[in-house]
């Protein structure tokens, strides 16, 4: 107090005194809840000809670039499809890979990407209030359309996540078939979970656990950087570990590619079964010829079909039932459900409120409204968990059945689903056009 009195007596000025006193009173009454954004102190009328600076509002990146990205995607996809299918050039694929690492990776910093756009599409389908940016929709649909015609050329070198792993593959090791099949189930689980969380507007887990985006931005948390580094180190030996054993968008591309019209063929002409390409695929995606004698006879095939048609529905029901028992655990990721849980177990006399609880109380929403919202979300998770479990049961069942099916095949052909059209096998084929 004496400080202020001294201050006032030194520079006596009525205007100043009023301003200081009013603020002093406010400081004293600061214990009371005061509402922000009130004009407590009117803007002064300046006498010294002071001009007020402009409030800084930095412009965002122009919308034009979002369309430009889509154009770059189309051009890169067309180019790489032409290079793979017409020119049959591995070097060309490599060049496009380097370009997409530089452009979609380091320049655009990994956002927007097709893998993540899957969640935008899901969110837009399930949440009426969310409107999807047109570029996100384009990034989702365009690679799928190309894959339906030309195989997984998007994976080959346009996807920045795939490209960075592909260029690092220097010492490929072959993986055991059973391990490949088992790990190959993870993407289905990942896809199911990411769709469940996106559909309930909970979280975009693909973006959250994207191992390479932090590296592209030079700004990852230690945890994410460690995961990214592990994937990159692994991809020196194991071909594309993220693409094959995690990527949820890869599942959709796999489905599309199975029915692709013009898929890459190992030989440009007729296969002479020289077996030179047999071990050339680092992904293990080359199907060997199946001689007629390995084919099973009609009777055992019918038996197997009947037993499978019983087992698969059973697996689906079992999967759905199991996961639906865990639907509350799955729902805990949702912030509203988490807050409701926290508030239910909150004891104001012994516990300090968390930031969430404080923010909720200051917002003044009635508690019952939050609880009813959380109950709706948990209900959605119950239905979602049933669907997810049934889906996983179906996938497991079909994977099991595919192990016992022998499709008659004379030549060495790429497995249309698994093959990412990286064009490594082409140079092993001695047959000329």
């Amino acid at each position: 107090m004496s400080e202020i009195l001294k201050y006032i007596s030194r520079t006596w000025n009525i205007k100043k005194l009023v301003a200081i006193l009013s603020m002093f009173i406010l400081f004293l009454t600061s214990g009371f809840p005061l509402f922000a954004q009130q004009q407590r102190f009117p803007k002064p009328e300046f006498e010294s000809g002071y001009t007020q600076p402009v409030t800084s509002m930095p412009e965002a990146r122009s919308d034009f670039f979002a369309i430009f990205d889509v154009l770059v995607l189309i051009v890169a996809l067309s180019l790489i499809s032409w290079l793979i299918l017409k020119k049959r050039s591995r070097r060309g694929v490599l060049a496009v890979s380097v370009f997409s690492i530089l452009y979609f990776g380091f320049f655009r910093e990994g956002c927007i990407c097709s893998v993540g756009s899957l969640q935008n599409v899901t969110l837009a389908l399930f949440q009426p209030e969310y409107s999807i940016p047109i570029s996100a929709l384009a990034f989702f649909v365009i690679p799928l359309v190309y894959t339906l015609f030309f195989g997984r050329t998007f994976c080959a070198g346009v996807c920045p996540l795939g490209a960075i792993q592909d260029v690092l593959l220097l010492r490929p090791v072959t993986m055991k078939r059973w391990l490949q099949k088992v790990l190959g189930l993870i993407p289905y689980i990942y896809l199911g979970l990411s769709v469940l969380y996106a559909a309930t507007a909970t979280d975009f887990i693909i973006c959250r656990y994207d191992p390479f985006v932090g590296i592209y931005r030079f700004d990852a948390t230690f945890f994410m950087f460690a995961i990214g580094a592990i994937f990159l180190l692994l991809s020196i030996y194991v071909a594309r570990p993220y693409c094959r054993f995690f990527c949820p968008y890869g599942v959709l591309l796999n489905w599309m590619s199975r029915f692709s019209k013009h898929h890459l063929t190992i030989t440009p002409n007729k296969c002479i079964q020289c077996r030179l390409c047999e071990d050339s695929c680092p992904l293990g995606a080359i199907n060997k010829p199946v001689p007629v004698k390995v084919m099973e006879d009609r009777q055992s095939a019918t038996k197997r079909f009947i037993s499978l048609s019983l087992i698969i529905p059973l697996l689906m029901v079992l999967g759905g039932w199991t996961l639906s028992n865990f639907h509350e655990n799955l729902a805990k990721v949702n912030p509203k459900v988490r807050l409701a849980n926290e508030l239910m177990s909150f004891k104001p006399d012994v516990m300090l409120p968390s930031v969430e609880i404080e923010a909720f109380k200051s917002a003044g929403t009635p508690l019952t409204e939050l609880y009813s919202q959380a109950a709706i979300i948990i209900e959605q998770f119950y239905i979602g968990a049933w669907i997810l479990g049934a889906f996983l049961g179906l996938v497991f069942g079909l994977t099991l059945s595919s192990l016992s099916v022998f499709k008659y095949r004379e030549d060495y052909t790429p497995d249309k689903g698994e093959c990412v059209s990286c064009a490594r096998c082409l140079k092993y084929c001695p047959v000329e056009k």
Partner: protein
Amino acid sequence: MDNKGKKDRREFINTCFRFAAGATLVGVTGVLAHKTVSGNTLWQIDTTKCTQCGRCATSCVMTPSAVKCIHVYDMCGYCDLCGGYLRPNVKTITTGAENQLCPTGAIKRKYVEDPFFEYEIIEDLCIGCGKCVKGCGAFGNGSLQLQVSHNLCVNCNQCAIARDCPSGAFSRVPADEPYKFSGFKKEKKG
């Protein structure tokens, strides 16, 4: 002959599935076509919901955060005793480091005329912690507001701060109106 028939059948089934897959894609696109926004959407803070919890400084994928304190000069009272600049209960009103509320010294205080002072945010130093915003909102006009600075924001598909925001203040806004200042007078785009 038999093999040829098998091959034809396989080919036919393949074509059927291809058309089914194509139809699904067209269907999804068609359903979503009327839900699209032509431009991009950007993340922004609703200042009326913001509680200045301080997570903007720590949750952003960028270091330092893309959220900055932005000074809406139109709302400022140009106070000498600024609740956003000075710590509560300071002994002297000076620019001494011990008196400043900002942990990084990102607010520049400039004398204008008796008894008014201008406060300027040095964007490079601001970490978006919101301490000054809280002070200004509690004691003053609330002219300091936390906003996503769009030249720094990488516009993640899912904003990491939005996920951690306890008050749900983050939302996607259309790109033609990228700032959400609150107050009695909105500044025209300069």
